[in-house]
């Protein structure tokens, strides 16, 4: 990795430069919240955003996408091509950069998901340092730092960005579009000071001690029944989660019934029929069993395969939950046995 200093007032040069080669997607205001959306004018970019309503996963794994088009008569696939325009996701916080790596483990691997892959390979990532909000707990998992998974990462050190450059593309784009200077020892010190201030700003300090083991040992704990009583099974937590990847697949026929498309949509393990099978058996009929499964999979199921927790502490689920279920409190309840 190598490093450059970029003056803040020159950043629009980089964004405008990227726009000549890519679709640039970044954080913009929507009401009193923020969303990732295509940017026309660098001035629209809200680099002071706390978090976005939806995570960046939708740019790789859309809420709804056509997997293939088919002809009914001979049960043939007509096409299964993926639309993946060259794109830059600008301003991703470390939690979201980490979330994409967790998604990669699922969508790559023994069976490669060609739709996710095409978009992932055609998308550059520009990361951005952040300030912890009251719902953030990325410090619990070490996802408050991103060490790879970006092309450029911009750390705010006052009037300049301390830019970490990871990829050939990132280096070329910086060289081509924005004036930079070499870093000095003093810049590295400013970067360290910024990091220390960031770490000190967290309000949440989650006790993750022995969590994968505890969630197994306390599988029959009454806390899950209490959380099941609160949970509305709306699935909002899954939709806003940057690491929830479950999906449903269904076929849609065109009006004349001769052609159609196979579509996948975001799904949630909180929905009642998620684990139902054909003969009427439902393996997770109760809300308590479903909310427990969500945590069980994130804290142990995924970890057992990939050695990382399937959570980046972004806090979106606690913001989205209408029942006030907050992962920081759920983990606390697991540790103490008391739901607060």
């Amino acid at each position, binding site marked *: 990795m190598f490093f450059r200093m970029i003056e803040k007032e020159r950043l629009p040069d980089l964004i405008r430069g990227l726009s000549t080669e890519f679709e640039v997607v970044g954080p913009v205001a929507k009401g009193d919240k923020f969303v990732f959306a295509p940017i026309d004018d660098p001035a629209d970019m809200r680099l002071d955003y706390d978090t976005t309503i939806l995570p960046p996963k939708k740019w790789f794994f859309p809420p709804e996408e056509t997997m293939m088009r088919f002809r009914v008569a*001979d049960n043939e696939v007509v096409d299964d091509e993926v639309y993946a325009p060259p794109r830059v996701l600008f301003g991703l916080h470390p939690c979201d950069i980490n979330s994409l790596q967790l998604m990669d483990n699922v969508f790559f691997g023994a069976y490669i998901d*060609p739709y996710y892959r095409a978009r992932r390979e055609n998308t550059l990532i520009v990361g951005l340092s952040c300030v912890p909000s009251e719902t953030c707990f990325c410090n619990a998992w070490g996802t408050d730092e991103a060490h*790879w*998974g970006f092309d450029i990462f911009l750390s705010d050190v006052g009037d300049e960005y301390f830019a970490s450059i990871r990829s050939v593309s990132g280096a070329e784009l910086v060289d081509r579009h924005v004036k930079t200077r070499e870093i000095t020892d003093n810049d590295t010190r400013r970067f360290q000071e910024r990091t220390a201030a960031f770490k000190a700003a967290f309000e949440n300090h989650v006790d993750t001690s022995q969590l994968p083991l505890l969630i197994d040992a306390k599988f029959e704990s009454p806390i899950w029944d209490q959380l099941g009583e609160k949970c509305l099974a709306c699935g909002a937590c899954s939709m806003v989660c940057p690491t929830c990847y479950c999906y*449903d697949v269904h076929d849609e026929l065109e009006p004349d019934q001769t052609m159609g498309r196979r579509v996948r949509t975001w799904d949630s393990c909180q929905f009642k029929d998620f684990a139902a099978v*054909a003969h009427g058996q439902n393996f997770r009929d109760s809300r308590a069993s479903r909310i427990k499964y969500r945590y069980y999979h994130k804290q142990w199921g995924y970890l057992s395969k990939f050695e990382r927790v399937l959570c980046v502490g972004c806090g979106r689920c606690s913001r989205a939950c209408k029942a006030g279920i907050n992962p920081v409190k759920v983990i606390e309840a697991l540790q103490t046995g008391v739901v607060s």
Partner: protein
Amino acid sequence: MGGVPRSTIAPGDRTSAGVNPYRPWPARITSIIDLTPQEKLFELRLIDEGARAAFDFDSGQFVELSIFGVGEAPISISSAPSKQGFIELCVRNAGDVTGALHRKQCGDVVGLRGPFGRGFPFEEMKGHDVLLVAGGLGIAPLKSLINHIHDDRHDFGNVTILYGARSPAEILFRYQFDGWKHRDDFDLILTVDHPDDTWEGDVGLVTRLFDKIEVDPANAFGAICGPPVMYKYVIAEMRKKDMDVDRIYVSFERRMKCGVGKCGHCGVGHQYTCIDGPVFNYWEAMNLQEAI
């Protein structure tokens, strides 16, 4: 720099997909046998010769059966891997996709993806006794193992098959099992919950048949498939016979929607049925929350 950005994503392999694992291969239905009023046995042949030659599976694995316009369903393979060029699927008319399949005719084309998952450890079982216990439609995946053992019979010790069905009319593959009644190389015991006037076999749950069999616990493998409620009772009988926990194999049915470990629907405990199973040994299954 070219049109395609080069991005550093993560250390690790990013190999070419080559094929789309979600795209079904067209397969022709070459035979349909009515087994019961609810179940039919379909013989399917992949139309693409290369795909047909490359289709290699283990007993206990499943395929995703695809009927465009209706959807996909996971179905375990009933034929033996020793028979190449076609597969057999024993399918109950229980949902949209299986219902649509039941309306298909011989010669019609459907889609297949797979084979998926982990099957029974056939090679490990060689040289040992095997006790196979099936309930209802659970005979479908075990039929593949039974026939595979049959085709390599000299490699195995005693082979015992216990199969329970609700009524004589609901016994699947009865034409084969009736023919096996007098064989001395397979101990086959059928039982039904509700006998009719013609039934001369056993009556009652499959677990009652354990009084009638001898098991050498030092040498025996178990294989179980049936309705979810059946497992713990059959496993208890096998444990009473001192069979090892890691030599008892169970096959689970869950909602394997994608088959490739991504859609999440078939989660069982900390695993996915589609890629980690559907066959687990009992030690593994004991460690899967809510599995049994």
